[in-house]
């Protein structure tokens, strides 16, 4: 996505009218607004990669993530309602001064970046992970991940994209959600009985696609 489209939505968000249809009409963002968003994207990019593809699995890939999920998480960091260890260490500070319009602009920008390519993994883990993702674990009352996150794990509104995400990051999130360090009401019940080895399998599969 071109930055001037992001600026359009950024400004549109500020006006309370986020709509892609308006994007082409709102291309006259002031230089200071453009510079401010560029600077914020560069700051995020220090850890997440300026195109939303991070190097360290401590930091999630943001490229092609759903905008609704990015916005929700940034608000949760800003409001300090997402409180897992890395959220507190990094994101409470980073999100604390973001305006609603900037959050919208960031969501549009990063969701518009090219998805990270999948990476390989242990064949047995991949097969086990694919099965868990597509079919769940019926004997543990764990539903299929795909039912909310999409058949290709591409995400769906508030349900995040998981495809291409770092294995270690996904496992970390499953663990902190399971232990309730991170609040995620739907997920608490869904993964209550998910074992560590099952987490590793499904996370390995998700990074591969």
């Amino acid at each position: 996505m071109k930055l001037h489209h992001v600026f359009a939505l950024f400004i549109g968000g500020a006006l309370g009218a986020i709509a892609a249809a308006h994007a082409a009409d709102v291309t006259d963002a002031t230089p200071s607004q453009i510079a401010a968003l560029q600077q914020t994207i560069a700051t995020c990019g220090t850890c997440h990669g300026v195109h939303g593809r991070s190097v360290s699995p401590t930091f999630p890939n943001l490229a092609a993530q759903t905008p609704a999920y990015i916005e929700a998480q940034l608000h949760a960091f800003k409001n300090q309602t997402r409180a897992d260890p890395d959220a507190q260490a990094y994101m409470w500070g980073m999100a604390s001064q973001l305006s609603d319009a900037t959050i919208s602009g960031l969501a549009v920008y990063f969701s518009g970046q090219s998805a990270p390519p999948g990476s390989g993994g242990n064949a047995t883990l991949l097969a086990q992970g694919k099965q868990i993702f597509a079919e769940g674990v019926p004997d543990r009352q764990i539903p299929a991940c795909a039912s909310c996150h999409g058949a290709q794990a591409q995400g769906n509104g508030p349900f995040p994209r998981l495809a291409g995400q770092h294995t270690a990051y996904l496992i970390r999130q499953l663990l902190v959600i399971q232990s309730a360090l991170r609040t995620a009401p739907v997920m608490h019940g869904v993964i209550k009985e998910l074992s560590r080895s099952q987490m590793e399998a499904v996370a390995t599969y998700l990074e591969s696609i």
Partner: protein
Amino acid sequence: MKYILVLVFLASCLGLASPTGAVPSFARQTGMACAACHTVFPELTPFGREFKLHGYVLDNIKQITGIDTSARQTLAINSLPPISMNVEISYSHTGAPLPDSTIKGALAKDGDLLFPDQVSLFYAGKIADGLGAFIQLTYDGSADHFGLDNTDIRYAHHWSFGGPNGNNHDLIIGITLNNNPTVQDVWNTTPAWGHPYASSSTAPSPVTSAKVDSGAGGFGQTVGGLGVYAWLDDHVYVEITNYDASIPGGAHPLDSTQADVVNGLAPYWRVAYEQRWDRNSLEVGAFGLDASTHPGAGTPLRGPTDKYKDVAADVQYQFIGEDHFVTFLGTYIHESQTLDASILDGFAANDRNKLNTFKASGEYYYERLVGGSASYFGTSGGSDVQLYAAAPVVGSANGSPNSRGYILEADYLPWLNAKLQAQYIGYQRFNGGATNYDGSGRTASANNTFYLLVWVAY
């Protein structure tokens, strides 16, 4: 020559051996925990390096701002001043007691409690858009001295360019104004922030070090420098900084009563390449310093000078896991000395000397809670019976600077900003010998030092 030795020993006691660099005001400014910038303080993570290279200006707290009629920002300062405290309390014990400082044949007290070893006050954070500072004022307990410690004031500007969004490449150009060669550096292989991060300021340390190093021969806090650096795509770093003498206290303008006074400008240069992958980062670099100095110490600051050419190579590897943290640091420094002035003044026996220093450290921490390190260090060089003259404890019986040994350290961090440290430095050779190295019967192992430290920053 003994006068020079005493001067460098006193200089080494004035805080040069004990870098400090954990600054909670950065955490207050950014809203981020220490863990964002440090593996275990003061060692920097990749994000910590970026924060420093951007000029210490990343802020996430309410700003007090001002603009002029053309909307140019004229003020942007934190609503809270970026002030921090650092307190170090230590106990040092050497393998054998040191001689009494005045009574011949008597011994000093066995073991030394320093309360405090150091107390530092920092102004560390943003001053204006792009402009930030790390300014450390330290009270040194052993010297009973309060003064300016490590200081780095810098301005940085960031550009993004290339690609459809104009952000495929990143470039930071910065300016640094500092008082210690390498205090501006962002890797922990360079001397100012090198391992060990804290060690005894009262135990004997080897007779000399390279000018770019942080030991007795170094320039820390006795120079002022202005430099420019560039950081491209989180990979390539280049810097050049020119230093001039800036010795606190004593005669000003500087005169013959001062020692080791830089003549003209002393250029420091630095190149480094960093690669990051998964949870790893690897840096390979080089740095150096060219300096000419007047020995002073009773001789006029005129005429021939001593010339020092330092060239160093360094490598740093970090693994930053969720629970496990591993670091390897390696540094090699080669110094060529041309001592035209010291020969004339009778401070040196040779007009040319070499000095080689090698340091290697491995560190491991578990959950930033417990861990430790093992290090090996060595200095070797040509013998010079004037430069490294025999003197009790601090001198060399055979005029040699050769020292080598190891450091073992265990750390416990009950909180991210508090460290309990137990360190043991063992010398296999000290100032050229293992036994009677100083000509007064002292052994190298007599200087082995057990050092306990309570280090808190808030």
